[in-house]
């Protein structure tokens, strides 16, 4: 899919969520689903398999998100998967998140940790990153076991990496 098509889908999802008045929740839920989609090879293969009928793939989405996400999020993901664009879902969601952040004059901060952050930790981490970068941030947290421990924070092109994974990799390379 071309960048224009990705931006077209992202703009459509953004407008639907904004019109529905659930932009913040939808954006957050789409972001989390996109990250899960990226890290699950089985999910990627299933949702992007053209041999599986679209209705069946959409039914899988209903099973996964039904009751755990807003109906708008479920319907938007189902629409993307049903149109055969599941492979581009993470890119579409990333553009959507940036569009939503820009609409609120925020910069996206992507934080990866091995264990979930508490609400208090998210708030303090957001404040700390805003203090460090001088930007108002839209914090997106991702639980990524490959981080092993610590935190990896990405704000635009800046990466603040204090993960155990990186330290282990550095130690391995020295070995």
């Amino acid at each position, binding site marked *: 899919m071309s960048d224009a098509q990705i931006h077209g889908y992202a703009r459509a999802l953004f407008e639907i969520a904004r019109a529905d008045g659930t932009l913040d929740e939808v954006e957050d839920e789409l972001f989390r689903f996109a990250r899960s989609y990226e890290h699950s090879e089985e999910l990627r293969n299933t949702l992007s398999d053209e041999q599986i009928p679209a209705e069946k793939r959409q039914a899988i989405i209903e099973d996964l998100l039904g009751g755990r996400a807003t109906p708008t999020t479920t319907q938007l993901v189902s629409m993307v998967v049903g149109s055969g664009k599941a492979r581009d879902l993470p890119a579409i969601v990333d553009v959507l998140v940036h569009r939503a952040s820009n609409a609120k004059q925020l910069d996206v901060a992507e934080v990866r940790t091995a264990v979930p952050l508490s609400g208090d930790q998210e708030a303090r*981490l957001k404040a700390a990153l805003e203090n460090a970068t001088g930007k108002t941030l839209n914090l997106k947290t991702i639980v990524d076991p490959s981080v092993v421990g610590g935190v990896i924070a990405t704000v635009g092109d800046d*990466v*603040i*990496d*204090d993960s155990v994974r990186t330290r282990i990799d550095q*130690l391995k390379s020295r070995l």
Partner: protein
Amino acid sequence: MIAAQLNHLAGIVLEAESVPNDGIGSTSLSPYFAPMKEVVIGGLATLIVFVALYKFAWPAISKAMKDRTAGIQNDLDSSAAARTEAERDAAEIRTSLGDVDGERTRLFAEADSQAEALLADGRDRLAQEIEELEAKAEIDIAAAAGRGADELRADISRFSSQAIESSVNASLDDATQQELIESFIARVGAGLQTGASS
């Protein structure tokens, strides 16, 4: 004695001359000598014959003799030439035999020289091949040792990495995870860059 015999002979001759001519011919009274006239005439005739022979036949005889002498001389010369040629041929044969011996000696010497050169060349090549094989063997040994060392280092690194990862994973309980997160928040909040950043 001799004088008596000569007188006897003279008497016989004189007696023969005293035989009268009978108109038929001269008859000598001596059984041994002809009459004087006959002797004289016969002598003259003989002289004439000898003179004629000397004048007419002698040149031809002399020429024939000279020709024969020349022929014999030619034969002798030819024989001498043939002998000389035979001696020259013999000398050439002897020389040739000498040359054959020399050539054989030279060929044997050349063969010995070539054989020696071949042996020397073979020894040189063999020595060179041995050196090359030794050098290659040393390189192979060094490479094998290097590979062994590399493999050993790789094994050590891999086992160390696995040990580190296992040790870290074992030590990362929830409290440690929270401590790491809090540490990160504190340092970022203090404006410190932590770990890798770009």
